[in-house]
């Protein structure tokens, strides 16, 4: 029975739609990003492995087209790191779906990820995964639900321990640089 269960769970996961990955090229090309057949194959393979590792099943096209749609206009997404970035974002996404106990919807999580990636992490995946999402996941597990109203926007600053904007420091530096 156990082996049989695993089979159907794997079967559901393996129903990858590579063509759907490639179809995203139509709208990412204007940002100078595109996936090759080889990339799509690799992304599908990575998706299967991640889902297995995170013990999740995905039905249908899955989250990758949505990740592409959300991140394709990011200032930190370049053609030379495009495929690897997608793999990394996919990994982070599934990891935090579990960490947040499925309390947060796909769109809310993606919105949060995108905002942090652009404005807080400045394209640093490790910071996104290890700090921003880690802290946010703790809040969600503790029962925080404010993201429902904000759709995941402007959430991190409520939990951020680092002062991102220090007016006095700014003026001091400005004085040093400009008034000398």
């Amino acid at each position, binding site marked *: 029975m156990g082996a049989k*269960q695993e*089979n*159907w*769970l794997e*079967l*559901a996961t393996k*129903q990858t739609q590579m063509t759907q990955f490639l179809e995203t090229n139509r709208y990412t090309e204007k940002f100078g990003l595109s996936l090759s057949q080889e990339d799509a194959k690799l992304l599908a393979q990575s998706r299967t492995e991640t*889902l297995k590792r995170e*013990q*999740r*099943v*995905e*039905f*249908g*096209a*899955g*989250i990758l087209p*949505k990740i592409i749609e959300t991140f394709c206009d990011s200032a930190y997404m370049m053609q030379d790191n495009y495929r690897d970035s997608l793999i990394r974002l996919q990994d982070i996404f*599934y990891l935090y*779906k*579990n960490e947040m106990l*499925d309390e947060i*919807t*796909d*769109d809310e999580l993606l919105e949060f990820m995108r905002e942090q990636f652009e404005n807080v992490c400045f394209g640093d995946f490790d910071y996104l995964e290890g700090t921003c999402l880690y802290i946010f996941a703790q809040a969600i597990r503790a029962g925080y639900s404010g993201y429902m109203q904000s759709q995941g926007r402007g959430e991190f600053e409520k939990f951020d321990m680092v002062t991102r904007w220090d007016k006095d420091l700014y003026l001091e530096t400005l004085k040093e640089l400009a008034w000398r």
Partner: protein
Amino acid sequence: MHSDYSQEELVAIVAELAAQYFGYEHSSVTYERAQGFMEAVLYCINEGENAGGGTLPLRDASARELYESGRRIVTEKVGKLRELYNELIPEFEDYGVACLGDTVGRGIPAFLQRYDVKFAPQETLLTLDYPVLKDLGAASGIDRVLNYMTCISVEQRFLGKFGTAYVTEILSAYDDDYGDLTENICEIVLGNLIGHLLADKPPESRGFDGAELENVQKMLQGKSEEALAREIAMPLQFFLERYYENRTVLAEYLKNDIPNITARIRCCVQNHCLDRIFLI
């Protein structure tokens, strides 16, 4: 059975359930949750299959057809349970036994409120602490609870003929703190009744004197459990025929307890303590 359907067919139904459960807002689910949905699908398919010569010819039915027909059956069973509960509850008597009162009076309404036909029909939700005389087997979900309530309904019919005062008298003779018992009270009353039948005393009479118990002791001495069961069967049948209409279901139900009762009687005969079963 289930293996006749392709995994693709089943996975498609599971995917649909998962999407509906999460309001199309989550594209993936945990293994655990997916497994729960698969169990829900298999439970309904099983219901559809067990309905047999009903609405669908099994050979031609697809997994989806059987699933949908099974889900309708599950919904009908929930309706039956609600009907049974509503019929039973105005006259329901727990005889001061908290476990029975809680299981039926609080557990069943909670079940009806929380049972999820669509996403978790396989969940029984209740522990059904008050034990019934019938083995409910491996059944789960509505099958188990409906079966259980049918047993309770039969028990209530059986006990109802004796009257509350008489039953509570038997129970307090059995255990001073009978309110905390987690035993089947029907079995206790049935044991006492068998004493009356064997001693040839009217069921409504109270108390066994030493001579009566001695006579029964002699009558049963050295008999095997099978012989005891035969000894009990006839007077019990006459009793049921005399006091109950439509007694087939009741007789079948009580028959479940005969092996247990005969074992206890035999033990008491060997130890000269029949007064522990034949109470008042």
